[in-house]
């Protein structure tokens, strides 16, 4: 192991902190926006609560426009916008901005998918009581689809941790960048696997939490 953990452990700890920060903000902000977009997809889809072909197709187009763009190209393309919004085109925050955008698009799809198998009967019950579309979403659709939603966000959590490895592209730091530059690129597998191990432990804990919450939400 070429990396001297005793002397430079600070760099490693900082990388952990950075990853947590990236994941928290990108998943927090992107996940929330994605929830909104996903709900909108669900509501406007043909046969949905408020079918709206124009909005639905527009959203579909938008999401599918951005999602398949290779992330490194997306980061570069967003550069000017990132600069305008974040104030810099490099660094952790400059990574979080495009990452959160990508998370929004991905989570929109997962949210839509979780909602789509909802029992129409319960939606109808709420409608019959005069609940507005928004109220139905908030008090019926989301609570009823909570188990798949929790699993979807757990999935996203792992995806974002994975994605955060790319933060190094714009000097964003984090565990992934650490593993790449101190381990992988130096062909130092000890450092690589140690870092990966930390990531895995983080991810496992969150997955356990997610599974447990989903089970509670199912109440069976």
């Amino acid at each position, binding site marked *: 192991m070429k990396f001297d953990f005793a*002397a430079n452990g600070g760099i490693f700890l900082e990388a952990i902190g950075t990853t947590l920060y990236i994941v928290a903000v990108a998943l927090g902000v992107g996940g929330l926006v994605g929830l909104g977009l996903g709900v909108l997809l669900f509501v406007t889809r043909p046969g949905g609560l408020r079918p709206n072909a124009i909005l639905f197709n527009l959203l579909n187009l938008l999401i599918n426009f951005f999602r398949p763009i290779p992330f490194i190209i997306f980061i570069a393309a967003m550069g000017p916008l990132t600069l305008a919004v974040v104030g*810099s*085109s490099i660094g952790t925050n400059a990574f979080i901005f495009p990452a959160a955008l990508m998370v929004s698009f991905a989570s929109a799809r997962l949210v839509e998918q979780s909602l789509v198998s909802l029992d129409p009967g319960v939606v109808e019950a709420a409608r019959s009581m005069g609940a507005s579309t928004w109220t139905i979403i908030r008090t019926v659709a989301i609570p009823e689809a909570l188990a798949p939603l929790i699993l979807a966000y757990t999935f996203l959590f792992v995806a974002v941790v994975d994605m955060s490895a790319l933060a190094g592209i714009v000097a964003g730091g984090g565990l992934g960048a650490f593993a790449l530059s101190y381990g992988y690129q130096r062909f130092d597998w000890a450092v690589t696997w140690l870092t990966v191990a930390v990531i895995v432990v983080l991810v496992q804990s969150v997955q356990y939490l997610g599974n447990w919450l989903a089970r509670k939400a199912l109440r069976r």
Partner: protein
Amino acid sequence: GCGSPSSDTTAATADDAVISVGVVGASSPEWTVFTDKAADLGIDVEIRDFTDYTTPNPAVSDGSLTANQFQHLLYLARYNLDNNADLVPIASTAIYPLALYSSSFTSVDAIPEGAQIAVPNDETNKSRAIHLLAENGLLTLTEGTGIIAAEENIDTAASRVSVAPMDAQQTVTALPSIAGAVVNNDFVNDAGLDPADALVEDDPADPSAQPYINVFVVRAADADNERLAQLATIFHDPDFTAALAEQSADSAVIVDETPEELQAILADVQSSLAG
């Protein structure tokens, strides 16, 4: 264990009808020249295009490739040491200068205290960039820093600037939001930078630049292969060097060392790294 890569029947060898050569950036025009010239010699060459520096060497080691050309001797030395590998250079192409650019400042002296400089994030280029910045007074390195320098070798208290390692390509993109960027030569031309605008660059003619000679690399077993030796001559064909020069906006310094010379330098670098 059993079935080691070198004995694998599918391994690419110098005797194959088609010789596969790994490069990073096959879109550069010199590679079209290369394959054409090889065809003239009756050798069928397949250029394999990599987008990442880390993979082409293991691919030669494990026999997936016959040869590669993308790295300088320092990077190769590092690879050999780290992986107990014995890849050898059999031809040289050029030394590319590494230069510092800025869109805000016109001289090194103008760069303010505490500024950030973008540097490539792969180990050897990062090290070279750190050395460049140190030589020009922007950084102070700690005692005993060797040929490979990293962030931990920077005496942050004594340094004027800090470094931000990032994707080599991204250093150019970062220019608007950072005081300066050390840009790999590969990107200078395509990014529309003018080498003349560089604030500082290292001197390819200086002997200390020898580890940065770019080389054509094969497995040790293939070091004396006839066909590969024939291929190696193409690197000094005038058409090829012209294409190379054009691609680097005439900043590349063509180097023509013998394989023995190159292998000697490599051995030097490796031993200094190991020590």
